[in-house]
């Protein structure tokens, strides 16, 4: 039986296009110190540090964990770096949780970051290696065909993506850390923006952000303050290229959700889970993941979105923080989902708090929708 694991501290930076005022070390320290302050601890109280970020090519700092170890108080302590592309923030939290659940450590600091302004992620994701004929331009270029296929299969009307884009940005107006805060955002504004990778419009895409997020994890006996308790953790991956692979609703996502639900005793996610922070970098991924995660039947996800159920005042709010569509420091984006889920069940989400949230899902995916990481956190001990 695994040891219990709690989230006892959360720290975030205000996500923005360019944090020109801080170095990478200064950025991660800002989040880490806020998480420690939330937990009422200092670097001295930590047993280990786990760092996550997306490809090194984004900042051109190879193995940044080596340079960041002492900036995060890891001198003389175990330090690990995690990388699973866009899902890395979630995987990093789960590696940290594993160190607690296994009984190896009492307190672990988990940090994810990205300083996208140091280069250009689309460039880094489209390096045009010789011999390759791939014509994929950035993440949007990769995901657009799968969104198109979802629309064809489900018969979803074309405006559903815009509904998500508006809903998440309205939520962002309630989150002081959110990057995109667009007063007066509405469907007409979203639909007036150009198609970048049709069917994805500009305002249906995530921004490029600088930022860091940190959480402090602890064992039951070392817990301080207001803990969020981990009820389930799961990771899955699948080959990018496999005959018969369903790129609209990947099997790895379904398997990962089934695993985490089983651990948390969830049989009806829409009813039992109070709030979800799900990795939605392009608006259409909300209805797609509603189906993949079992919140809606196949082909019905767009109807759940259209009904308003995923809004902050709906029966199953998705991304009350504004989500990846509002803030995207890539290496931190998954961890932000996990941290926001914890904030919700701790009752500490501020203006975007879902009333009475007791059980929350944090979700991240990455690569060509081939890496998945999820956790369920609760107000009560499991």
């Amino acid at each position, binding site marked *: 039986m695994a040891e219990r694991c709690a989230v006892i501290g959360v720290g975030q930076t205000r996500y923005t296009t360019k944090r*020109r*005022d801080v170095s990478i070390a200064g950025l991660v320290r800002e989040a880490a110190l806020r998480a420690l302050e939330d937990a009422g601890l200092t670097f001295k109280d930590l047993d280990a540090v786990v760092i996550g970020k997306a490809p090194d090519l984004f900042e*051109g700092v190879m193995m940044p964990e080596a340079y960041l170890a002492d900036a995060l108080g890891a001198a003389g302590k175990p330090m690990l770096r995690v990388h699973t592309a866009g899902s890395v923030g979630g995987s990093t939290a789960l590696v940290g949780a594993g160190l607690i659940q296994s009984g190896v450590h009492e307190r672990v600091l988990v940090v994810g970051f990205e300083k996208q302004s140091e280069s250009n992620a*689309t460039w880094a994701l*489209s390096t*045009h*290696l*010789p*011999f*390759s*004929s*791939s*014509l*994929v*331009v*950035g993440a*949007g*270029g990769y995901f*657009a*065909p*799968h969104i*198109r*296929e979802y629309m*064809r299969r489900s018969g979803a009307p074309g405006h559903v993506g815009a509904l998500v884009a508006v809903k998440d940005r309205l939520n962002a107006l309630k989150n002081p850390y959110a990057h995109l805060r667009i007063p007066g955002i509405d469907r007409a504004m979203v639909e007036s923006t*150009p*198609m*970048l*990778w*049709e069917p*994805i419009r500009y305002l249906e895409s995530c921004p490029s952000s600088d930022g860091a997020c940190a959480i402090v994890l602890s064992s039951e006996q070392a817990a301080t303050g207001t803990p969020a308790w981990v009820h389930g953790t799961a990771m899955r991956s699948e*080959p990018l*290229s*496999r*005959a*018969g*692979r369903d790129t609209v609703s990947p099997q790895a996502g379904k398997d990962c959700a089934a695993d985490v639900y089983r651990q948390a005793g969830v049989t009806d996610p829409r009813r039992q889970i109070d709030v979800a922070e799900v990795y939605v970098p392009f608006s259409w991924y909300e209805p797609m993941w509603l189906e993949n995660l079992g919140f809606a039947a196949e082909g019905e996800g767009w109807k759940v979105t259209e009904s308003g159920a995923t809004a902050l005042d709906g029966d199953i709010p998705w991304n009350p923080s504004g989500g990846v569509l509002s803030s995207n420091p890539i290496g931190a984006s998954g961890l932000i989902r996990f941290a926001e889920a914890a904030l919700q069940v701790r009752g500490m989400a501020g203006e975007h708090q879902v009333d009475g949230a007791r059980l929350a899902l944090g979700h991240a995916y990455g690569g060509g929708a081939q890496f998945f990481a999820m956790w369920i956190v609760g107000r009560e001990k499991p």
Partner: protein
Amino acid sequence: MSDPLTAEHVLEFPGGYTRSTGPVIGRFLTELRAGRIVGVRTADGRVLVPALEYDPATGDAVTGEYVEVGPAGTVTASAWVAEPRPGHPLDRPFAWAMIKLDGADTALVHAVDAGNPKAVAPGTRVWPVWRGERSGHITDLACFAPEVTRIVSPVRVPYTLQAGGALRVFLEGIRRGVFVGGRCASCGKVYVPYRLSCPECGIAIGEQVELPDTGTVTTFAINNLPDPRAPEVPFVSAYVLLDRSDVPVIALVGGIPAHEVRQGMRVKAAWVPESERTASMANIRWFAPTGEPDVEL
């Protein structure tokens, strides 16, 4: 009108005029040569920079007290010089600025190498950039510049990429105008490009299969962002499932307006002329519609 009658003439005292500095300005320039900026204190306690022999406000002599100021200061006013003249301290656009050095009560006029006009404004903090060889002249201060907030860190890693065995088989096929795939002996699926192991079964793939250059568009994106590999914007990047294969390849679709491309559309590779072919995907310009009826997906 006939051309005006003109002639060039230069008026220049040979060797340049000399200037006696006097003790106060002399001290200021001597300190500059040593890499320090000093002001002189007035009778009422203010610090004048550059140092003057008298207090311009009262006409009184200054005290003999020299005060090191700066080295940083704050811009109080500036004017942007978009087109520098030959006699200007910098050969690129710069700002003339009034700079109140830390510890001084008056502002010094100097050039600010700010890069662009938005980078200098009242309140901007600037630091001196010293000339390597100093002689006791105001130009010992080459200019001032905003604080260092960012550096550029070029990374350039040249590689030699060698196509592995499987890719070589595939590209040699492409040189001949043939798509080579591989069939898994366990699950029977055909993978293209040819590869050495089945991602589903994990076993070695031995059997090579020559595939037709026709297929079906399963899905696609219309890209409105330019790309060096695409002939125009918008361009269509599509998943093309080659006939008799089980995994789609991503390829450019051409020969049809982007908005007329359809899921289920039948396409065929458009090869470059045989004389131009190499072991490279550049052999295929794009996939173009065959005109056959669309396939039900």
